[in-house]
């Protein structure tokens, strides 16, 4: 097991290399000149060139990449072109709220999604199933920014219950996590349902019934665990997307997270920040995949890691 994990983690390194290169290429492919964006509208060419020089942006691309990787190996992510703040500090400040938001979103989405999925599977093709599934499907059908805007109108403006944005109190997390988690909840509910429906048709379920277990024992004690295997994968993947995929929601709720930093950095062509963030997303995505694989092993004894 340990050997397996170490092997997997070592396997991440070459992948990250490739990813780092692709990202580097990608962000430099996008047209735009950070020097000009920083210099502002009054700037003349001379000034822009000076800034370029100062930022080493006038060097050939391969050299910039080598320098970047060199710094990276010394644990230096560089500093923001725009604000001169070290990238690690910039990301460090954002990652905590982002992570909290992601975790909260995935947590409620998991709990509610699995519950809806279970109810739907048990009452398959009857009204609780229909209601459950329509609720769930609504989650992925709503444009999440629309949901966010409408929620603000209702809960903040009309009812005055929740803040419109910011994260000064825990309440600030509620609406963003709902807007963010709705889609995931839907996915999880649907996966749980179809997976559980399938499991409930398995022979071993019939075995359980033939032994006189009650319906609840069958569902929770026998079927759920193997049904959750595909659900975990979906949830894992979704979690991977969450950190980066929340650009729109973060904008609506003025949430100081990674998504907004990313979009702002992209707008400013703040290469070091974009590069670091994208690499972090990739790394996180890979890491989540690893965790999902390990969870798989926990849920499914057939998989052995050695």
């Amino acid at each position, binding site marked *: 097991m340990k050997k397996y994990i170490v092997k997997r983690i070592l396997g991440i390194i070459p992948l990250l290399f490739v990813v780092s290169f692709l990202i580097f290429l990608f962000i430099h492919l996008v047209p735009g000149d950070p020097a*000009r964006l920083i210099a502002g509208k009054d700037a003349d060419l001379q000034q822009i060139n000076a800034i370029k020089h100062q930022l080493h942006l006038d060097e050939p691309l391969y050299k910039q990449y080598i320098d970047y990787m060199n710094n990276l190996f010394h644990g230096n992510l560089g500093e923001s072109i725009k604000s001169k703040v070290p990238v690690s500090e910039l990301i460090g*400040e954002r990652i905590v709220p982002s992570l909290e938001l992601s975790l909260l979103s995935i947590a409620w989405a998991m709990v509610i999604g699995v*519950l809806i999925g279970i109810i739907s599977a048990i009452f398959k093709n009857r009204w609780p199933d229909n209601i459950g599934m329509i609720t769930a499907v609504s989650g992925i059908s709503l444009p999440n920014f629309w949901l966010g805007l409408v929620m603000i109108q209702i809960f903040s403006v009309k009812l005055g219950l929740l803040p419109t*944005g*910011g*994260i000064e*109190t825990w309440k600030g997390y509620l609406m963003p996590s709902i807007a963010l988690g709705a889609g995931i909840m839907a996915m999880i509910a649907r996966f749980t349902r179809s997976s559980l429906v399938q499991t409930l048709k398995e022979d071993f379920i019939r075995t359980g019934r033939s032994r006189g277990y009650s319906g609840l024992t069958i569902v929770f004690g026998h079927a759920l665990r193997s049904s959750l295997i595909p659900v975990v994968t979906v949830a894992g993947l979704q979690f991977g997307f969450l950190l980066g995929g929340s650009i729109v929601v973060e904008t609506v709720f003025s949430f100081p997270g990674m998504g907004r930093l990313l979009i702002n950095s*992209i707008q400013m062509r703040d290469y070091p920040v974009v590069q670091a963030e994208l690499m972090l997303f990739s790394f996180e995505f890979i890491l989540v995949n690893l965790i999902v694989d390990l969870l798989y092993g926990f849920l499914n004894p057939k998989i052995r890691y050695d």
Partner: protein
Amino acid sequence: MIRSKKIMGAFLIVLLALVLTACSTTRSSSDSGGAASSDKKDKDINIAVNQDFTTLDPHNVSDTLSISATHAIYEGLVGFDKDMKIQPVLATDYKISDDGLTYTFHLRKNVKFQDGSSFNAEAVKANFDRIQSSKDALIASHYLQYLKSVKIVDDHTIQLILNQPFSAMLNKLTMVEMISPKALKDQGDKIGMHPVGTGPFEFVKWNQGESLILKKNPNYWDKGYPKVDQITYKSVPENGSRVDMLKTGEADFIYPLPEQSVQALKTQNDITVDQTTSNIVRYVTLNTNKKPFNDKKVRQAMNYALDKNAYIKVVKSGFGSELDSTMAPSTQFYSKQKVYNYDLSKAKELMKEAGYAKGFTAEIWGDTDSATMKGMQFIQQQMARINIKLKIKAMEQGTLSDAINTPKSPDDAKVQMWYVSWSPSSGDADGATRGLFSSAAFPPNGSNTAYYKNGEVDKLIDKANQTTDVEKQKSMYATIQKDIYNDAPWLFLGVDTNLSAHVNKLKGVYVLPDGSIQVKEAELQ
């Protein structure tokens, strides 16, 4: 079987309810609030703004919002008052030599930086030295391009010596604010994160992307100020959300207030909407180097086809005024011109004369801001009336700036029409003219994206700059404005009205014409 399912269903619903409540209670009990600002005190104010701050280094700041913050922390030798008139700030008075080359400032005494170090001539020189030694890499070096040297006369007197006369020098100096030399030495490049100035507020905390917290500078030289203890700027990019925050009391002051929300706020008794003049001009550049925009008649026809009143009514929700010159009335040396009044038949006639009776198709570019897109749509609708079919191309700002600024020569430029705005942040006529209309300012050297070239204007721009006689300058700029307006390299749209809103109990926070927020006089009642 059915019965057992019902029981199971009920059980699950109860379970669901339990989980939900459990979730919410655990959240609330473990609530720690996180930031220090969680509980707002009596003399604290919250200001909601539309962007994130980029830097707090006053010498390297280019966006109006960050300027608002540096204005609260720092001060320059001179500054603007409410009407963009230049006032001495850290200087008690100043004198300009007759040849316009030597500026002598007498510095205010007993002023301390927020870190306790003294403000004196040494400190001023250190600041100018920093900017000049950056070899153009600091944005402020742009303001000091004609500065030759800085001379310390005595501890509280300093002289700036220029290469050539520069009429806008004082305006530019409002943008050069004084950083504590000690902090500069300690922080180096990181000064943008740990600002130390002489201003009414000192830096507390900057939560990237979320908020900037400033607190009262207890040792501020201007006794009686500031009157509030703490200011929190919150970044709220979504227009609607800012308005909502004001309604819910999460913000005491919001800027910008979207025009379309004014109506909604007017019904609220505890909220005041402020309209202040702005020097932001809205226009569409027409690439005069390209067909059919190289034809003055076409450009004039387009201007005549544009219903400016409708523009203000529809796009600006009634706030703003028509642009009747190349610059806003609040800008230095502004001179009103005869407007291209909405006249469709005249426009059509001009088009016919130019040989475009059947119109043409063109692209209009702009950024992805919703206000810009709204404006572009309006232009599209208006131009359709004289058979000009416009294709709207909204580009993300990095891409847009690349497309507009990188062409090496005018003939490489692809831009036809660009929906854009301009505000000279130092409020001077040069800043509102040279970069936009001088033929030396064709991209990539400047922002003359209309590729406007008029030898007379070029000459006058240079001449006006070097003149020290204010009256002469005034008349020169009047000519410049008249010529350009007549040549119509732009579609002249309007001048913004700065809209902000605040709760009634807050006084003294206002928006300057350039769009920066002034907080020195903030007061809660």
